Every structure is written in structure tokens, then in C-alpha cells.
């Protein structure tokens, strides 16, 4: 009996822990997110929010405008869309999605999991030419934004007969993330091979996994959200009371000038000091061979377009520029950027995506850029004006003509100069 008591003492806490954990993760609960949380998340840029689902779904339902991009979104100066739309009535509430290293594939899985919440919405997509390197998205960076919950959602809703879904499964399998869980890996392989997913995998991924992951998202995502509301409030202080484009543009010019005094590239002082100064010598003429014209990113991007078509979304695409002085220094060719621009615009326009803000040649406008490749002051002001016009237009039922050609190696390798 003594041994049994001892055994009881050992096992009881474990059983209790197991029961509580199972109840919490698999029980019939729903933990709603508050509007407060959504507001905080809308400017936090935290990877958790991107990986999660609940907060984004609620944001869409609450009328936020999803702005998908990458590192440029974190350049919060006084003309950042989140700042301007807080100060003035610009007709939209931005919800920022993206961090350094988030590219088309991450946004595809993120929007996929939004499901019907995305239906008939407007979104803004910032296209960085830098995404389109030959190797495509860096698997490690993809991994740090990979969400099992989104992968699970994709698996539950994928159709093996759709080329897009098979391509998406193949791409995820090419990343270490896709192989980090055997059941998910097996399910993806089934989709990629045009097979049905096995009963066991359907059960573990579809039934067990999705409940568990949904609860984890509902409980934990909100706990780790960076708060930038104070920062944004501070940024609004320098702005005049009434919106006036000419006046604001002058202010942006002045602020830009004031903050770019320690270098000849028009790069913001702190960024230059911290990230560039030490390395700047080694970077001279280091980008003469850079090309953004080829690679799998073009097909990954097509997945995102396909998503918009499926959910009747009206997107506005902003093609971002590179700092002109910096291009001259590093030897990045404007002609290469022009060819990239031609290729991506062909992919957009030939399928009926016509809301494009093409800034790719504006990198030489003074104080348009905040640093090497990121929009700032006057650039943000311009972007905000475009978004303002975009949300004023009445929403029409979009009509896209999707073309599976854009998933092929042929398209990835296609020389932009051969385009009509």
C-alpha cells in the first residue's frame, strides 16, 4: 500500500497536468479577441499575429484594410499610412502584415487561412523587387514565419486537382518547415502527388491538430503583441491639424532633410550609423550582377493572386523603388529594375489586376526613400494618397482571368524582354 501511495503522489500531478492541458487544447472553448487587441495588433508587426489567424479574421470583419508587405512596413515616420490614417480621416484603417523576410509564400498561407473573412475585401500589397531573387524565398526566413495552423488550414481545404494547390504543397515541402511534422508532410505529399490524404492524417491534421492550434492561437497570440500605439501617437504630433497634400509634402521634405545629414545617400541617420557605416566600403559596386527577373517567387506570387481571385478580392499593388543614390553606389542597374517591373506588371495586368501603383522609378525623388530600399517621408505620403483614392472608388465585382502558365518554370525563366 505504501508503494501505491508513493506511485499516486508521482502520477497524480502528471495526470492533472495532462487532463488540464488536453481540456484546454481540445475542449469546446472559444476565446474571443477584443477590438482593443485587434487595434494593438494592427500596427504591431509581430510575427505571432502573422502566424495566427483569429486576430486577422476579426480585423477583416471589423473593416481593417490588410496591408501586406515586408520590411518597409516597419518604417514608421510621420507619413506612414498607420500614422496618417490615425491623424486624418483617410477612409481606411490599416492592418499591417509583414516583416523582414515575409514574401509571397508567407502571405499566401496567411491569406489562405483567412478563408471567407477575406471575401470581397480590398487589400494593399507592397511588392519588393528584392523578393524576386533567383533562389526564391530563403527557407530559413520562411521558417521563422511559418505557421502550422495555416499549413493545417491549407491541407484541410486544398484540392489536389488544382494546379495551384499542388504547386503550393510542393513549395512548402521544399522548405524544412513543411517537413517539421510527419503528418503534415505526408498530407502535403499526398496533395502534391494528386492523391487523397490518408484517413489517419486527415484525423491528426484535420481533426485533432486544427482544434489544438486554433486554441493555441486564441490563447497565446494576444499575449505577445508589441505595442507601437505610443510611437504612432508621437509621430502624429508634428502633423498639422488639417490634411493638405502640398503642405505635408513640404513637411516631409523638411523632416527628411533634417534626418539624413550623416551620409550622401539620403539615408536616415540612425539606419546609416547602425547598419551601413561599417560596411559601406565593401558594398561599392557589389550589386552590379543582381537580378530580380527570374525564380520561383513569380510563381509563389501567382498563388497570392489566385487567392485574391478565389475570394473576389480587389487588391492594390504598390511596386516599391530602390534609393537612386544607393543604386549608383552599389551598381544596381535601373534597366534590370525596369525589366523586373515589366515582368511583374505583365503577370498582373494580363490576368486583370489593374490597380497598380508603380513607384519603381521614383527612388531618385529627394526624401522619397527612408533608407536603401524602404519608402519613407515623401514616399509614404504618396502611397497614402494612392490608398486614399483606392478606397474611395466604388467596389466592383472583380473579373480575373487566371492563367496556370505562371506556375511553370518556363515563366520563372522567361526573359522579360521577350514579353509583348
Amino acid at each position, binding site marked *: 500500500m505504501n508503494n501505491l501511495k508513493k506511485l499516486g503522489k508521482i*502520477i497524480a500531478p502528471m495526470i492533472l497536468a*495532462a487532463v488540464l492541458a488536453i481540456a484546454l487544447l481540445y475542449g469546446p472553448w472559444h476565446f474571443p479577441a477584443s477590438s482593443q487587441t485587434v487595434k494593438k495588433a494592427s500596427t504591431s508587426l509581430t510575427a505571432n499575429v502573422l502566424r495566427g489567424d483569429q486576430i486577422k479574421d476579426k480585423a477583416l470583419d471589423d473593416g481593417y484594410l490588410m496591408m501586406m508587405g515586408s520590411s518597409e512596413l516597419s518604417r514608421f515616420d510621420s507619413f506612414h499610412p498607420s500614422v496618417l490614417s490615425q491623424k486624418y480621416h483617410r477612409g481606411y484603417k490599416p492592418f499591417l502584415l509583414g516583416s523582414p523576410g515575409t514574401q509571397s509564400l508567407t502571405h499566401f498561407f496567411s491569406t489562405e487561412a483567412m478563408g471567407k473573412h477575406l471575401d470581397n475585401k480590398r487589400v494593399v500589397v507592397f511588392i519588393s523587387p528584392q523578393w524576386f531573387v533567383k533562389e526564391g524565398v530563403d527557407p530559413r526566413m520562411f521558417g521563422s514565419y511559418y505557421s502550422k495552423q495555416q499549413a493545417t488550414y491549407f491541407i484541410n481545404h486544398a484540392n489536389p486537382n488544382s494546379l495551384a494547390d499542388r504547386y503550393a504543397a510542393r513549395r512548402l515541402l521544399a522548405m524544412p518547415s513543411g517537413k517539421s511534422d510527419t503528418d503534415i508532410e505526408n498530407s502535403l*505529399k499526398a496533395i502534391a502527388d494528386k492523391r487523397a490524404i490518408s484517413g489517419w492524417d486527415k484525423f491528426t491534421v484535420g481533426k485533432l491538430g486544427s482544434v489544438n492550434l486554433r486554441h493555441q492561437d486564441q490563447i497565446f497570440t494576444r499575449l505577445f503583441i508589441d505595442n507601437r500605439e505610443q510611437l504612432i501617437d508621437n509621430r502624429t504630433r508634428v502633423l498639422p491639424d488639417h490634411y493638405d497634400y502640398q503642405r505635408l509634402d513640404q513637411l516631409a521634405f523638411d523632416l527628411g532633410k533634417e534626418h539624413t545629414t550623416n551620409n550622401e545617400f539620403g539615408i536616415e541617420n540612425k539606419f546609416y550609423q547602425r547598419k551601413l557605416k561599417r560596411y559601406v566600403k565593401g558594398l561599392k559596386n557589389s550589386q552590379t550582377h543582381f537580378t530580380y527577373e527570374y525564380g520561383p517567387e513569380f510563381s509563389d506570387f501567382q498563388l497570392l493572386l489566385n487567392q485574391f481571385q478565389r475570394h473576389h478580392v480587389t487588391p492594390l499593388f504598390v511596386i516599391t523603388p530602390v534609393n537612386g543614390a544607393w543604386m549608383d553606389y552599389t551598381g544596381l542597374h535601373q534597366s534590370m529594375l525596369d525589366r523586373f517591373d515589366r515582368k511583374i506588371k505583365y503577370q498582373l495586368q494580363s490576368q486583370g489586376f489593374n490597380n497598380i501603383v508603380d513607384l519603381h522609378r521614383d527612388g531618385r525623388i529627394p526624401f522619397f526613400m527612408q533608407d536603401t530600399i524602404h519608402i519613407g517621408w515623401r514616399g509614404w505620403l504618396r502611397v497614402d494618397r494612392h490608398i486614399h483614392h483606392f478606397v474611395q472608388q466604388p467596389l466592383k465585382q472583380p473579373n480575373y482571368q487566371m492563367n496556370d502558365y505562371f506556375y511553370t518554370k518556363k515563366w520563372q525563366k522567361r526573359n522579360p524582354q521577350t514579353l509583348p
Partner: protein
Amino acid sequence: MINLQPYQNPQYFILLLVALLPLMIGLYHGHRWRIYESLVSLLFLFFIFDAEKTGQGIALIAYTLIQTLIVKGYLSYRTNKKFHNKFWVFAGAIILSILQLVIVKLTPLFANGRDSIVAFLGISYLTFKTVGMLMEIRDGAIKEFDLWKFLHFLLFFPTISSGPIDRYRRFIKDYDKVPSQEKYVELIGKGLHNIFLGFLYKFLLGYLFGTLWLPGLEQAVLTHKSTVPWGLSIYLVAYMYCYSMYLFFDFAGYSLFAVGISYLMGIETPVNFNKPFAAHNLKEFWNRWHMTLSFWFRDYIYMRFVFWAMKNKLLKSRIAMANIGYLLLFLTMGIWHGETWYYIVYGLFHATVLILTDAWLRFKKKHRQHIPSNWFTKYFSIFMTFNTVCFSFLIFSGILDKLWFK
């Protein structure tokens, strides 16, 4: 098809505990239900090597057959009074025994990084077990062969993929008996403690360092490839520590699972880690890190080489012999990890530092009066050892290869 890789996620443990429950009830009441134990083992082995991994499963079956024949054959040879204990027979048995492992290890080198078709998860660890057995058969320490027990030892599923490496005689001692109820309750306590500590290590800390932080750091390191001389940016230092922590928590967590599950089955598999970062010199580090592997290399390669070299009077100096022993041991370990420059440099680095450590210890012994020993020297030596180890893991990680040669 159900495929379960060992300890891949918390759900695995639920399935495993359910399957082990009858066995545990039996052990608690003083019975080892061997047939049930074998069935559970077979089932979980099957789940590791089925579906997509069937090829590996076939390679494992072939491997098991071959190893059984070699061990059985060599034992018959050794126990038959007609034969003398010839070295070349022993050497032949060892060579045959490691042949499949050597093929598996060399294939990627000659086949553009592709894996051999005779490869399977855990082949190294099984080979360590059989080679150890062959050596002990030669020594006359193992005198009997029981096919059933041999298979249980070789294919003990909690440790199949990456150890800890058990020894045949130790394993069989546990397998043959049933622990007393008091002892078994204690084992359950320790086992569950290990498993929960493993959760903390592998699923929380290993995930934090390996999945959340490491990729960003690697990216940062590679971004500065050409901006600073040899790409030696500050991020490389951060990467070094982060990778070292990841390596430890991931592997130590895995080992804790294997040991914990073994305990629940009434088998006291030896532990693999004992606070390795508290070591105050590299010699002690290897007595605390991946212990079953370093003890295996120590007992079966290093000691045997040193004895053999002494018996044959190969070198006069014992110190020189010990040093060559280190080089041999760590070169072997490096090559075993894979035929890349960084694994081999990693091995040579450790051998060199161990040789220096020995020299320093001799020097210290001689000049004991003049060398201070206090709390500062103690913590300083721990600090130095930790950083030496982390530096060696930086080499091991292969990031320098990506930084300089890719």
C-alpha cells in the same frame, strides 16, 4: 498510413504511454510480460519504418539479419575450444559489422549528397552496439548468445534513433529481472521526471533557440558575408551561442525522453548528459556531454589503441601515445559525423585542445604551489571551457562552410 517518428510531438507520448500501460502494470506487480513487450516494441518500430520509410525498414531488416549472423558466428568461433583467438578473425568480424555503416556514411560523398539505399534511421547507434559486443566477445566477457535477447538489445525502440548507447551485459541484466516494487515506483518517478524535463528542453527551449531564433541569426550572418572581412560579423558570435544552446537542448531533451521511457519499461538506460556546461575543462566536458558515445569511443577505441600501442611498444612515451589516441579518436568521430571539412576540423580541434589540456594539467601538478586555485579560477575555467566548446560547435554547425565556400 500511420507513421510515428520517435518523440516527434507531445501526442506521441500519449500513444506511447497508453501502449506501455499494461507493461507497467505488470512490472508494478512483479511480472515482465515479455511477449506483450515484444509486440509493443515491434509495433512502434513498424510505425517508425512504414509508409514513406518502408525502404529504410527493409534496410533495417537486412541489417539485423547480417549483424545477427556476424555476432552469432563470431561467438561460436570464440567459444569453440578448437579455435585460437586469432586477431584477423576478430578484425574480419568488425569490418563486416561496420561495412553497412561505412557504405551509408560514404554514399553521400560519391552520390552528390544522396542517401544510400541501405541507410536507415539509427544505423550508427545499432552499429555501436554490435561492435561493442564483438569486442566483449573477443575479451571473453560475453559467452552466450540468445537470439531473442540479442534482438531486444539491438532493436530496443526507445533508443533506436539516436541512443543513448547501452551495453549488452548491462541491458540483459535489467531485461532478465523485474525490479522490486519499491525500486520500480522510484523508476517511474525518475522516468516521468525525465520525460517532463525533456518536454522543457526539446519542445520549449530547443524550439526557442532552434526554430525561433536561429534562422534569423543565420540570415543575419549570411547578409554580412561580403561586408566585413571573412564575414566575421558580430552576428556570428550570437549564432555560435544560439546554435550551441539549440544543439544541447534538442539532443539532451531527446536523450531524456529515451532514458525516461526506458525507465518506465524497467530498463535503466544510461544517461547521456550531466550538466555539460558546468565542466571546468574539456576532458571533463566529454565525461558530461553525449556520455554514452564518448565512453564508447573511450572504451572501444581510445583505451584499446593505447593498450595495443603499449603492448607492441609502438612509442616510448605514454604521453605521445595518449595524444595519438586523442587524434585517432576524434578524427574517427569527426568522420563519423560526415565527410565534410568542418566535421573533421571539429574533431581535430577537440583533439588539439585535449592534448593542450593534458599538458596544462601536468604542468599544474608540477607547479601546484605557484598556481592559485580559488573561486575565481574555478568559474574562469568553466567560462573558458564553455566558450571553447561553443566555438567548436560553431565549426560543427557548418555555417562557416556557407560563409566561406558557398
